[in-house]
C-alpha cells in the first residue's frame, strides 16, 4: 500500500466510526494534478493534465466539509449539486456522482477540464476561504473530470415518442450540442447544421488537443448521433439556406442559433497586415482543426514555422496560442499582456502550465507597432511598458503607459488574442432578428429572440463566454423550445 492509500484507509475508518472532524479534513493535503513532464510535453500535443488516480480523487473529495449552505453550488453557473457529488466520490460511488452531475450538465468531461473553476465553484469553497487561497479549495473540476473519465458510456438517454416536430440547431458548439440533446430527448426530430467539416465548435477548432482531447468531444457527438440527431456539416446557415427558408420551406418548427463568436479583433496598430501576424483563431484553427502540426505528414494546411513568437493577450485563447507555438517548434515564446498577472482572465492552471513550458510573460506591457522587413515579414514588435495607476470604475487599477519606455522584442510571428466581435453572417441574412449594437443577438431570460420560434445562446448572445455558460443557455433554450412545441 502506498502512503496515500494508507492515509485514505485511516480516514475512511475514522469516518465510519463517526470521528472524522473538520480539522482532520483540513489536514489532508490538496491533491496535485499529475501532469506530463514539462520538457517532454513541449514537443508533443498529448494532454498535459493526466487526471487523478482513484486514491487521489477520494482523498481530495474527503477534503470537502459538506457545508450545509453549499456555497460552491452558488458559484456554479448551472448549479450542479457539487456537495452531493463530491460526497459520493468520497464514498467511492462514482456512478452516482456522475448521475448527480448529469442532472445539470451534459458535458462533464469537457467542463471538468476547461471551466474556470477558480472564479466559479472553487472561488466560494469554504476550504479555500479558510486557507485564504483559492488554489487550496477542493478541486471540484478535477473531481468532475475524474468521474466523467471513468464513464465508459453506453447508456443512452431515454427518448420520448416522436412528436412530429422539427428542430434546427445552428452550430455544433457546446450550446448546440446540449440544445440538440435536450430537444431530441423530448421526441423532436433534430438536425444540427455546422459550417465546418467537423462538428464540435470551439472545442474542436479552438481549444487544443493538449488541453481537451478531440476524442472526448467526438464521443459527445457520437452520443448525439446514436440518439438520432442528424448532423449536417459544411452547411452554412445564412448562405446555403437562411433561417427563413428553414422555417418556411423546410418545415422546421423551432430554431436554436449557437453560431459562436466571429470576427477576431485586431489592435489597430501599424504593421498588423504583415506576413506573420495571425489572429489566435486562425493560428489555432490551422493547428487544431486542420492539423497543421502534421503539415506534409497527412495534413495539407501550412502554418508559419516560427522561431520567435509574441502572443498578445492574457486569456485562455492567448495561453492556448502560446503553448501551441511552443509545440510547433518555436524557440522563444513571449506573452505580452497589458494588465498585471492577477487580472489575467485565463484559468490559473493554464498560466502555471504555460510558465512551466518556458513561455516568457511580459506583464504590464502593450504593443505599439509591429515592425516588418522590405518583403513584408514580421521582424519585431515594439512594446511600451505600463504601470498601475488609479483604480477605474471596476475598482481595478488602470494600467497607464510609461512615457519613453518603448523597447523591441525580436520576433518573426505575432499572434493577436484580444477577443472577438460577433459573427456577422446571421445578421447579414436574417433582417427579422434583433441584434444589439455589438452585433450580439438579443434574447429574453428563456433565450427567445425577437423571431417567433427562434432561440439563441452561447457566444453569439453573450459575447465571449465560456463552455459552461453556452451549455447552460443551450439547456434553457431547449426547455423553452420543448415548451413552445407542446403548445396546442
Amino acid at each position, binding site marked *: 500500500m502506498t502512503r496515500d492509500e494508507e492515509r485514505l484507509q485511516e480516514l475512511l475508518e475514522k469516518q465510519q466510526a463517526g470521528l472524522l472532524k473538520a480539522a482532520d479534513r483540513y489536514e489532508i493535503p490538496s491533491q496535485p494534478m499529475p501532469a506530463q513532464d514539462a520538457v517532454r510535453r513541449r514537443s508533443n500535443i498529448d494532454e498535459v493534465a493526466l487526471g487523478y488516480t482513484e486514491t487521489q480523487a477520494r482523498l481530495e473529495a474527503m477534503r470537502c466539509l459538506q457545508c450545509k449552505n453549499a456555497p460552491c453550488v452558488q458559484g456554479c453557473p448551472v448549479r450542479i449539486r457539487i456537495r452531493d457529488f463530491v460526497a459520493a466520490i468520497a464514498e467511492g460511488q462514482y456512478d452516482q456522482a456522475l448521475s448527480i452531475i448529469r442532472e445539470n450538465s451534459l458535458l462533464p468531461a469537457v467542463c471538468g477540464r476547461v471551466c474556470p473553476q477558480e472564479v466559479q465553484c472553487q472561488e466560494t469553497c469554504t476550504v479555500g476561504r479558510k486557507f485564504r487561497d483559492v488554489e487550496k479549495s477542493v478541486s471540484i473540476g478535477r473531481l468532475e473530470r475524474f468521474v466523467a473519465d471513468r464513464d465508459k458510456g453506453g447508456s443512452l438517454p431515454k427518448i420520448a415518442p416522436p412528436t412530429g416536430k422539427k428542430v434546427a440547431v445552428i452550430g455544433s458548439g457546446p450550446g448546440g450540442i446540449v440544445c440538440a440533446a435536450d430537444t431530441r430527448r423530448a421526441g423532436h426530430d433534430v438536425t444540427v447544421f455546422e459550417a465546418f467539416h467537423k462538428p464540435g465548435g470551439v472545442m474542436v477548432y479552438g481549444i487544443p488537443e493538449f488541453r481537451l482531447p478531440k476524442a472526448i468531444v467526438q464521443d459527445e457527438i457520437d452520443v448525439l448521433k446514436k440518439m438520432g440527431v442528424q448532423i449536417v456539416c459544411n452547411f452554412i446557415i445564412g448562405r446555403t439556406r437562411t433561417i427563413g427558408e428553414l422555417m418556411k420551406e*423546410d418545415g422546421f418548427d423551432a430554431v436554436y442559433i449557437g453560431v459562436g463568436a466571429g470576427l477576431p479583433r485586431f489592435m489597430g496598430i501599424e504593421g498588423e497586415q504583415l506576413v506573420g501576424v*495571425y*489572429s489566435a483563431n486562425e493560428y489555432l484553427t490551422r493547428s487544431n482543426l486542420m492539423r497543421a502540426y502534421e503539415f506534409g505528414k497527412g495534413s495539407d494546411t501550412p502554418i508559419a514555422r516560427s522561431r520567435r513568437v509574441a502572443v498578445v493577450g492574457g486569456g485562455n485563447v492567448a495561453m492556448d496560442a502560446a503553448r501551441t507555438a511552443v509545440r510547433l517548434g518555436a524557440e522563444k515564446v513571449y506573452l505580452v499582456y497589458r494588465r498585471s498577472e492577477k487580472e489575467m482572465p485565463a484559468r490559473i492552471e493554464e498560466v502555471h502550465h504555460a510558465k512551466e513550458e518556458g513561455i516568457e510573460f511580459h506583464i504590464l506591457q502593450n504593443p505599439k507597432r509591429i515592425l516588418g522587413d522590405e518583403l513584408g515579414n514580421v521582424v519585431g514588435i515594439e512594446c511600451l511598458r505600463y504601470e498601475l495607476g488609479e483604480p477605474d470604475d471596476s475598482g481595478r487599477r488602470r494600467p497607464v503607459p510609461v512615457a519613453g519606455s518603448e523597447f523591441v522584442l525580436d520576433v518573426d510571428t505575432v499572434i493577436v488574442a484580444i477577443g472577438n466581435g460577433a459573427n456577422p453572417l446571421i445578421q447579414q441574412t436574417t433582417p427579422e432578428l434583433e441584434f444589439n449594437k455589438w452585433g450580439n443577438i438579443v434574447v429574453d431570460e428563456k433565450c427567445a429572440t425577437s423571431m417567433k420560434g427562434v432561440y439563441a445562446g452561447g457566444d453569439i448572445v453573450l459575447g465571449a463566454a465560456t463552455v459552461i455558460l453556452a451549455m447552460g443557455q443551450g439547456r434553457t433554450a431547449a426547455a423553452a423550445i420543448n415548451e413552445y412545441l407542446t403548445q396546442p
Partner: protein
Amino acid sequence: MRIGDVLFQEVIVTYKIVSKKQLSDNVFTVEVEAPLIARARKAGQFVIVGVSDEYGERIPLTIAGADPDKGTIRLVFQRVGKTTAQMADMNVGDSFGYVAGPLGRPTHVEKFGTVVCVGGGIGTAPLLPIATAMKQAGNTILSILGARNKELLILEEEFRAVSEEVIVVTDDGSYGRKALVTEPLKELCQRDPKPNLAVAIGPAIMMKFCCETTRPFQVPTVVSLNTIMVDGTGMCGGCRVEVGGKTKFVCVDGPEFDGHQVDFDQMMKRMSAYHKQEQQAHQAYQEHRCKIGLDRK
C-alpha cells in the same frame, strides 16, 4: 431528411464530379453535384472545397456557373499546389470531401450602362457569371480577356455570347493582340462616353494595374479578391485586407471591393506567405504520384 427537395443524409450528399474538362495545360473545369448551393448561389460568390474530409486543406474557389435544375455548380481551377493537383487527378464519378457555400456577398448588379469586364488567366472563369448577370440587368458588356498565350485562353466563346465586343490579348501575341489587359482597358476608358463601371478579376498584380489604369478616368472598378482563407465565415481573420485604410474580411465583407481603395501591395505579400511550404507539399505529392504511377495516365 429533406431540405428544399434535397435528401440530406451524410451518404447522399457526395459532391460528386459529374463532368470534367481540361481547358489548358493546367486549367480544369468540373461540374460538381451541390444542389442547394446551385440554387442559392448568385454571381460573385464562392465555395470552400476540401478534397478529403479529414485534414486536407480548405481552398476557396469562385463559382463559375451553376445549373439549379441539375443541381450542379461549375468550378474552374488551376493546378498550382498540392490540393489543386489532387483535384486535377480526380475524375468523373469521384467525389470531393466537401463543398461549402455559397460564401461571400453577391455582386451588386444593376443597370450601370456600359460595363467593362476584364478577365486575366483563370480569373476569366468567375468573371463569366458576373458578365452574364450584368448583361441580364440591361448593361452593355465590353470584355477584355487576357492570357499568357493562346493555349491558356479560356471561355472566349462564352464571353462572345454576352458581350458587345470582346478584345483578346496575349502576352506573347500568339492570339489576339500582343499586349497586357491594361492597354485596351485604357483605350476603352478614353472613349466618349467612358464606361460606367469596370470589373476586373485575375491575378492580384493584374487587378492592381487595372485599378491604376481606371483611376485617372474615375471609372469605378470592382475587383474580386482571392486571399488566403480558412473558414470562410468570418471567424479567423486570415482573409483580411486593407480597404480604404480599414481592415476588411474578404469572406464576409467581400470578395468584391472597390479596387481603388484596396491595398494590393500588402495583399500580395500576405498571399505569398506560404509559398515555400506549398511548393514543398506539391513536390512531395508529385513524387508520390510518380511512385504510384498516376502520372503515366
